[in-house]
């Protein structure tokens, strides 16, 4: 079973966001991690491989810094990694999906996993677009995966509950929190990861031009939300403070 994991490197969830001199997101000094939802996908791929055999291949689009995240997933147990640096000034989800789909189609696959969204742009559309380009069925936000004879049976979140969806393989499944608890790399894993293959490619290597992957969406500006002013602490004994709170919500904030 050949399992592809679509992976993205993101800022740490604790990262404070600032803008640089050009008004873009400041990347200086920010701690980078594997997108947490992609980490669930890596873990699930490893578990499926442990049960059914096969190979786990990581594919990512980004700058050289992404190698660090890929090495970490290799240390968890993935077999090899492919990193495509688009070297484009601006990219969007269409760009990334176009590149990923091209890279993946050259690798061959039985199953493609990824996080259901990345915690940075939060757009939740790259994996779906990849599925569409490759003409594969997609199931998003899965919290459980069973592989049985050429099929995947996935439990996915729906509003107010969940549903069990069956798809034939190959298919694209995206991981939701709850799917598993990702393992930590072992010291042995970390040592082995250094020797695992990491292929670096550019668009020309994939036979793509920048035009073919040109973004559909254009950014006008980035901005930071206005900081919320700290409000009022309601003093006094708890019963008084609670009464004052309800009064304030009604008469001052007028929200109830």
């Amino acid at each position, binding site marked *: 079973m050949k399992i592809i994991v679509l992976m993205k490197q993101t800022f740490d969830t604790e990262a404070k966001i600032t803008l640089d001199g050009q008004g873009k997101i400041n990347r200086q000094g920010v701690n980078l991690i594997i997108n947490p939802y992609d980490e669930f996908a890596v873990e699930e791929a490893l578990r499926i491989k442990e049960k059914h055999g096969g190979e786990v291949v990581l594919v990512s689009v980004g700058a050289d810094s992404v190698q660090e995240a890929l090495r970490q997933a290799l240390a968890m147990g993935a077999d090899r990694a492919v990193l495509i640096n688009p070297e484009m000034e601006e990219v969007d989800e269409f760009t990334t999906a176009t590149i990923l789909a091209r890279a993946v189609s050259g690798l061959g696959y039985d199953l493609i996993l990824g996080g259901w969204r990345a915690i940075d742009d939060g757009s939740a559309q790259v994996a779906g677009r990849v599925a569409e380009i490759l003409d594969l*069925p997609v199931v998003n936000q899965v919290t459980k995966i069973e592989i049985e004879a050429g099929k995947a*049976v996935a439990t996915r979140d729906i509003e107010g509950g969940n549903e069990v969806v069956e798809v034939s393989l190959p298919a694209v499944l995206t991981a939701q929190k709850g799917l598993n608890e990702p393992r930590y790399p072992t010291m042995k894993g970390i040592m082995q990861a250094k020797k695992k293959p990491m292929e670096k490619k550019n668009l020309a290597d994939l036979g793509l031009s920048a035009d073919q992957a040109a973004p559909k969406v254009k950014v006008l500006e980035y901005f930071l939300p206005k900081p919320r002013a700290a409000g009022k602490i309601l003093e006094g004994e708890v019963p008084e403070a609670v009464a004052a709170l309800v009064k304030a919500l009604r008469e001052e904030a007028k929200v109830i």
Partner: protein
Amino acid sequence: MAKGIWVYAEVRDNKIKKVTCEILSAGRKFADQLGEELCAVLVGKGLAELAPGLGAYGADKVYVIEGDRLENYTTDGYTKVVADLIKEHQPSAFLLGCTIRGRDLAAQVAQRLNTGLLTDCTDIALEDGRLVFTRPIYAGKAFVRAYCPEARPVMATIRPNVLPVDAPQEGRTAEVVPVSADPGDLRQVIREVVRQVSTRPELTEADIIVSGGRGMKGPENFKILEELADVLGAAVGASRAAVDAGWAPHSMQVGQTGKTVSPTIYIACGISGAIQHLAGMGSSKCIVAINKDPEANIFKVATYGIVADLFQAVPLLTEEFKKLLASS
């Protein structure tokens, strides 16, 4: 030339979702300014009776795509019928609610139509004749304003609870256009659907949210939050700390790795206010914090704070609200 602003009409429990009315209200204004039609797309089975009512929220026309194989939502079936209809009529914009289903459908349709998609938008503006969308990134720690220069329709999913709904115009009805459509091959086979029966509103659409964190000390104590929520008709949320401790399911998590919410009132109980939690609820209109640690970060963003043991304050608050709501 592409013309028409289209809105996906999402239905749950045989009712049009509030987010659909929110988008129609905004779409009506842009349609008027651009001199284009506002159309809704309704997909499912046995929903035709809901179609005319969309007119009250501003729709001029409602395309109704019905079929036995569209009774349950499947990514394949809905993508095909919606994308086919869009290809035929070529609207300039297609907007959906940023719900689990809206997100799922939007990504597939956007790629099939080779167009751009802006997700989870919190604002839309018409500037120089083009729609400009504001959307949060890094879970609301920053925002981006973007548009789609060429590809049509421009697509966007809109976050529930942020755009105002105009009062329905009684008597205004929409032209209903039944569409016969072939959902094609459905590769997703739904084996089982499990719905938790809940009388509470959906977290992302709730007007009031009562949320608990590490200070709850255990799953059994969420009961006091539920009692408060029931008095207020509120949803119950949880911080990552409470979810990771196993006290609440992930579906209740508010924050960067959970749901992003913008209720009118967010009541944070025993939540310290980690940056990733604040990202998920920072756009709430009024934040109430109850925490016994006066130094807790949550007080820096709270509209009103009470420094107290939540186990004392929350039941008192429930009683106060009961009194208030009984008297009004």
